[in-house]
């Protein structure tokens, strides 16, 4: 029952092929059996999952069920869950039990979904390989010696190994799309402001956005509709109605104009990855789309822009971790300054400290204009590039990541090499536009993702375009052999 998509599970639960409780027990068993291999979870919430499953079974039996009732999911451990440990992958929050639910969690609980547990992630979502987690690296289900990508590596690995049918995730510079690409699953980062950030532990507040990692665009459409929407508790939440994402999945693509970003195809792209993207574009042409080359001249500056803006916001957001109100506190502080410095020095890992220091540096007196204001101006140029492109085309298609998954440890000592993993994804965060990564083939037996980006609030169009491809191909149905039902019970 664990190779089914969410859409299939929903109809099988209604046909009474199995109960929510049976499904939940089966998945909890798979999570337990996979944990020593994947390390995808920080916390498994078996008891509360079974309680939610029982309520869902009752709702289904009494005809009270909604479209998502009884469907299991995992939450990235960045979303606060009331009464459940919420660590953000950090020693700093190793002892933190959230007193409240994130809006996303609250909404999906209310929709009747069953929370299986909290997924591992790069510490405070800072990383592209899941190696910065205090709880150890997550492994890629396609090859356990490789990284799953990051920061939502636990969510991506869990969905790829089919130990959870879908998982929440967050994306500040590519943290949903890059792990989705490296694990062969679907990952959508909605428009900035589309999904509430309330209770989603902040990294860079002008870039952070919650989304989903799923087996298909159809599954993402089902859950995104329940997850998105205005939230007065998030001051940048946008008050725009949530369209029916499932209802527009099958809209015809005839006349669709696809933009190919010249700067992405020009250089640095692996030729095997490029071939798969070109093959996918042929599928779209067959469906009636036309291809147009577009130029986004400021886009190559997205990585340096991001590494000013994101650390600046991170240094300010993470100032709240002071060892006083919650989180790690050092032993025997000799004064308040010592308490702050050692609690933070011990509680944060190497990459988080690096980014806090970069942020502190670029915001410090004498450097603010040269770095921070300059980066905000370049961000404006990148935003204008996207706007001009979307005047011409409906969506932009290209690679999600420069290459397939790499070995654990291969880039860990060189932050710049690690940062360049997000070269194709960061632009969407800077411009606030939505983007989705879907599997489009394999290179050396490892999955490759294709990225589709659209204008603000075009999630419905992205899901439609992705779904059309997934009806024509079966890349998204491939799963790693070691986690097939007969191998992992």
């Amino acid at each position, binding site marked *: 029952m664990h190779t089914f998509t969410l859409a299939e599970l929903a109809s099988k639960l209604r046909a009474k092929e199995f109960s929510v409780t049976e499904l939940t027990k089966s998945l909890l068993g798979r999570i337990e059996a996979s944990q020593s291999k994947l390390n995808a979870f920080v916390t498994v919430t078996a008891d509360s999952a079974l309680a939610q499953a029982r309520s869902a079974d009752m709702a289904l039996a009494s005809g009270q069920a909604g479209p998502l009732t009884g469907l299991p999911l995992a939450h990235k451990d960045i979303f606060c869950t009331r009464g459940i440990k919420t660590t953000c992958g950090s020693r700093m929050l190793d002892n933190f039990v959230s007193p409240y639910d994130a809006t996303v969690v609250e909404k999906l609980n209310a929709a009747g979904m069953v929370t299986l547990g909290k997924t591992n992630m790069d510490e405070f979502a800072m990383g592209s390989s899941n190696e910065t987690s205090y709880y150890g690296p997550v492994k890629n289900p396609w090859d356990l010696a490789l990284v799953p990508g990051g920061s939502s590596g636990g969510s991506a690995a869990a969905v790829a190994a089919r130990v959870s049918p879908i998982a929440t995730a967050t994306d500040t510079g590519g943290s949903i799309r890059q792990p989705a690409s490296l694990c062969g699953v679907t990952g959508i980062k909605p428009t900035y402001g589309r999904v509430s950030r309330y209770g989603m532990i902040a990294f860079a507040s002008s870039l952070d956005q919650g989304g989903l990692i799923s087996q298909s665009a159809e599954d993402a459409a089902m859950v995104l509709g329940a997850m998105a929407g205005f939230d007065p508790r998030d001051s940048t939440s946008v008050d725009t109605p949530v369209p029916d994402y499932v209802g527009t999945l099958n809209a015809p693509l005839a006349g669709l104009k696809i933009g190919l970003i010249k700067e992405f195809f020009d250089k640095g792209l692996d030729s095997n990855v490029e071939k798969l993207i070109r093959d996918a574009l042929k599928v779209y042409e067959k469906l009636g789309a036309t291809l147009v080359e577009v130029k986004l001249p400021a886009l190559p500056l997205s990585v340096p822009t991001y590494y000013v803006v994101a650390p600046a916001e991170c240094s300010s957001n993470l100032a709240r971790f002071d060892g006083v109100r919650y989180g790690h506190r050092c032993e025997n502080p000799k004064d308040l300054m010592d308490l702050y*410095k050692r609690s933070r020095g011990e509680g944060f890992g190497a990459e988080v400290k*690096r980014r806090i*220091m970069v942020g502190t540096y670029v915001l*410090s007196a004498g450097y603010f204009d040269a770095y921070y204001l300059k980066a*905000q*101006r370049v961000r404006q140029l990148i935003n204008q590039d996207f706007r001009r492109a979307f005047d011409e085309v409906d969506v932009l298609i290209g690679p999600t990541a420069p290459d397939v998954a790499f070995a654990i440890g291969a880039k860990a000592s060189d932050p710049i090499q690690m940062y360049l993993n997000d070269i194709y994804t960061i632009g969407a965060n800077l411009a606030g536009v939505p983007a989705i990564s879907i599997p489009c083939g394999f290179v050396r037996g490892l999955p490759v993702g294709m990225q589709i980006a659209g204008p603000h609030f075009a999630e419905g169009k992205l899901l439609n375009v992705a779904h059309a491809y997934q009806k024509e191909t079966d890349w998204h149905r491939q799963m790693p052999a070691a986690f097939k039902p007969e191998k992992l019970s």
Partner: protein
Amino acid sequence: MSLNRDQINSIAHLARLSLTDAEIPVYQDSLSKIVDLVGQLEAAQTAGIEPMAHPLPGLAQRMRPDVVTEGDQHELYQRNAPQVEAALYLVPKVIE
């Protein structure tokens, strides 16, 4: 551009981070490389370009009425605190 040991110590102090002696050269090296990376921005032509602080242009920050919307839950919140006494957060003595 290369950052020296004193600069790393001063940034760490501003950020309220204690660093071990072994960490300092590691951050000297990586922060210098990151400063070089972001130095690429210098060449960008940005005269007359408005700095962008919000990814959705034209949307103003929302205000709400200044009224109490949350009840008192200090006991619940303070369960996560390292040290609490009489509903107060305890820290080392600040004033002698």
